């Protein structure tokens, strides 16, 4: 192993309007190393990687590849220097085939070939520019025939420059190489498959092959395990080791402490866009890493007393719900939640959790089955009716479902009640009541906002979530359905919201908590139900729900 890092970031700074996303960040990656980049959501990990990949331009600082300073004007330069990136949200085009996705942006063509040397092409560009100037001149001299001639010349020369892009694509040879790569790295894919028909695990393989096809020897993986079960993650780690053995250097971005400790050779921690430090996994513990990430000692356990379950509040029998594509996503699911307990639904994303929550809250039609809330039939009720029974809902995607960004905080705080007294008399709104309600809730729930007239879109993520919680808890709650209630918000707000959920339980509400973060489920829930392919595989009391057991259940293995 040579001493020159294959990749080095020196003092990288990125300023967005109003935000300092990266501040003097340093990072070195050695040949064949797996280097983990750890940090909370919003700590600037992805921004840093996007700069290295040429997607963003650094405000300050420099990037060195193999000791040479490199200017990454666009991903093209990064790719040319052997850097490949697998984004958290895959950069694949759903309607195209694997082959087409892999060859996209490359000029892989076949058939007749016109070799135009780079020097000649440069000359051509200069000539084209000259023609353009000449054209403007003759145009204003009203010499139409000359103008016409110049345009024809420009078209002919221009198409010579473009010619490589207008030759026939070489799908056959690309597909052949993709097969070879997939065999040599043990990543089975079929180049003729269409992306939208593939599972996320396979799509991830396509992304890796796409980088390898471009001869990447530095691979950036952004939150690669977010969509995988613990067991799939294990398999994925084997792939990483495999790549490492063949000399690939890897930057592994994550916010999951256990994984980072398991896979990394070195760990660099970012907080608020700054370097906190680089440590070796042997010298670190989960607690020490968490403290580096957050900047203070973190209590990973939520402080809560034992549950005292009461009557059944939510009863679901044989529920079936379809997803957007009309396929059954919730497939004969049954569960019950009692007053004063938290039922946690664990599972890998995409196993029907969203459809379950949307079915229960009336947002998605129910195909068959029965839902009873508070012992009353409520299977096919409209969302508004369900909400009026006393069901509070903290949606998965707060920006999309929870808030109207163009409305003031006050308006958002009455979204579920604006049509009722005292906010409306008949069809006429009472803006004074809406404002005073807003003022009261903002104070009670500690929403940091300049005024209740401020647009919700201008609040921070944590405060947005507080607005939703304030609204949902501002009327009597019999059943709370919380889907990913703390995704992507700061630790302070997470603690606040966790405490609010536990308080709701203690005041006698039934709570259905859905989360892809196993740690959140294990620390909050009184019972854990594991969801796999639209069904509850098993429900465990919290005492029996060990990480390993739940992990196997998440993969559909009933242990």
């Amino acid at each position, binding site marked *: 192993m040579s001493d020159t890092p294959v990749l080095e970031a020196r003092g990288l700074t990125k300023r967005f309007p109003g935000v300092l996303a990266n501040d003097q960040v340093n990072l070195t990656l050695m040949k064949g190393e797996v280097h983990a980049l750890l940090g909370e959501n919003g700590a600037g990990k992805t921004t840093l990687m996007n700069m290295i990949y040429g997607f963003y331009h650094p405000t300050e600082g420099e990037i060195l590849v193999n000791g040479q300073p490199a200017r990454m004007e*666009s991903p093209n330069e990064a790719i040319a220097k052997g850097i490949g990136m697998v984004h958290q949200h895959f950069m694949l085009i759903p309607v195209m085939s694997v082959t087409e996705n892999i060859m996209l942006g490359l000029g892989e063509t076949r058939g007749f070939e016109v070799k135009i040397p780079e020097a000649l092409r440069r000359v051509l560009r200069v000539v084209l520019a000259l023609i353009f100037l000449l054209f403007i001149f003759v145009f204003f001299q009203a010499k139409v025939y000359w103008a016409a001639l110049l345009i024809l010349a420009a078209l002919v020369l221009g198409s010579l420059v473009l010619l490589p892009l207008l030759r026939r694509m070489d799908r056959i040879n690309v597909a052949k190489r993709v097969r070879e790569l997939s065999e040599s790295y043990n990543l089975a894919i079929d180049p003729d498959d269409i992306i939208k028909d593939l599972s996320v695990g396979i799509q991830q393989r396509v992304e890796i092959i796409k980088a390898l096809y471009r001869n990447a020897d530095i691979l950036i993986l952004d939150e690669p395990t977010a969509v995988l079960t613990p067991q799939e993650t294990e398999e994925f780690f084997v792939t990483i080791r495999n790549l490492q053995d063949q000399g690939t250097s890897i930057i592994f971005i994550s916010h999951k402490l256990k994984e980072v400790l398991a896979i990394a050779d070195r760990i660099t921690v970012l907080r608020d866009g700054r370097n906190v430090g680089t440590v070796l996994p042997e010298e670190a513990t989960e607690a020490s890493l968490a403290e580096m990430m957050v900047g203070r000692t973190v209590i990973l356990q939520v402080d809560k007393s034992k549950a005292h379950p009461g009557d059944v509040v939510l009863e679901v029998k044989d529920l079936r719900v379809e997803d957007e594509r009309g396929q059954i996503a919730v497939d004969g699911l049954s569960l019950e939640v009692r007053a004063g307990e938290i039922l946690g639904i664990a599972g890998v994303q995409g196993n029907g959790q969203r459809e379950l929550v949307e079915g229960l809250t009336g947002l998605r039609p129910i195909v068959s089955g029965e839902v009873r809330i508070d012992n009353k039939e409520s299977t096919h009720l409209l969302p508004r009716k369900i909400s009026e029974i006393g069901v509070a809902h903290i949606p998965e995607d707060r920006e999309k479902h929870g808030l109207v960004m163009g409305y003031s905080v006050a308006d958002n705080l009455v979204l579920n009640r604006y049509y009722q007294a005292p906010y409306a008399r008949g069809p006429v709104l009472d803006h004074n009541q809406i404002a005073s309600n807003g003022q009261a809730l903002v104070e009670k729930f500690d929403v940091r906002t300049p005024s209740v007239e401020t647009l919700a879109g201008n609040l921070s993520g944590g405060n947005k979530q507080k607005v939703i919680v304030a609204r949902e808890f501002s009327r009597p709650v019999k059943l709370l359905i919380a889907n990913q209630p703390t995704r992507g918000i700061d630790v302070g707000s997470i603690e606040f919201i966790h405490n609010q959920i536990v308080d709701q339980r203690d005041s006698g509400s039934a709570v259905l908590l859905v989360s892809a973060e196993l740690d959140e489920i294990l620390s909050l829930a009184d019972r854990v139900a594991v969801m796999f392919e639209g069904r509850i595989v098993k429900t465990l009391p919290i005492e029996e729900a060990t990480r390993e057991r739940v992990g196997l259940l998440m993969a559909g293995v009933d242990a």
Partner: protein
Amino acid sequence: MDVIALLFTAGTLQLAVATATPIALGAFGGLFSERSGVVNIAIEGMMLTAAMSASFVSAYTGSLYLGILAALISGALMAALHALLSIRFNMDQIISGTVINFLAAGLTGHLYQTYLVPPQWPGSVGTFQTISIPLLSDIPYIGQIFFQQGPIVLTMLALAFIIHYVIFKTPWGLRTRAVGEHPEAADTVGINVYLMRYTNVIIGGTLAGLAGAWLTLEWIDNFTINMTTGRGFIALAALIFGSWTPFGALGAALLFGLANAMQIRLQISFPEVPAELFQMLPYVLTIIIAALARPVPPAAVGQPYEKE
């Protein structure tokens, strides 16, 4: 003569192909634009501007070919404005298209009244003559329909094949489609999304320009106010009808051209049948197809791409 027989004579179908030409060319123009992710309801405006420029330049220079060139350039310029507004200034693409349509109506009207009416008007130089392609035009029935046509019609037919090749078989087409489906993904493999969109919108503009040239250089020999009469919107309809593919768009355009040709024939033989029924046909068909067949548009069409 029997009505049905009259409607399907080679002459009627020849007319159908001719009148389908501006629609097909407009749809091809829209195809480049929308495949790269830019909604184009401005085909009408580009076509109108081009028709005026073609008429203007051919009359003042005496050359039909320079007229075509002027049409291509003016179509491209209007498209460049559309691209600038919707790509650089992030304007809603439908509003930008509306701006282009209004602007085209105003500018062509103003220039027409300033330069294209007597006494300034130097007089038209006529239109392109029909070309009979040797051998092919001798095929009975088919030959007259497809191969005895003006040069712009013949170009249109050839373009359908060329565009199919470019869009589906070349790296350029792959990039164009990628930019219209998932611009961010295209960006991560080093494709310049903005450049692709600008170029494709402008290529689209030249094709809409050729459609305009057909109106004043091949169909009739002078410009009149608002002479496109909605052909640009029918082109848009043909594009949707044809699911954003060149052959699909050509098929739809031929269908609409057939309706048009039948209307012209019927008006002569059966003046009591309301001509408006045939005028409505393309629009009604498009609404039905859009509602029932639901052709899938490029995923990112209409969404501006904002980086950083």
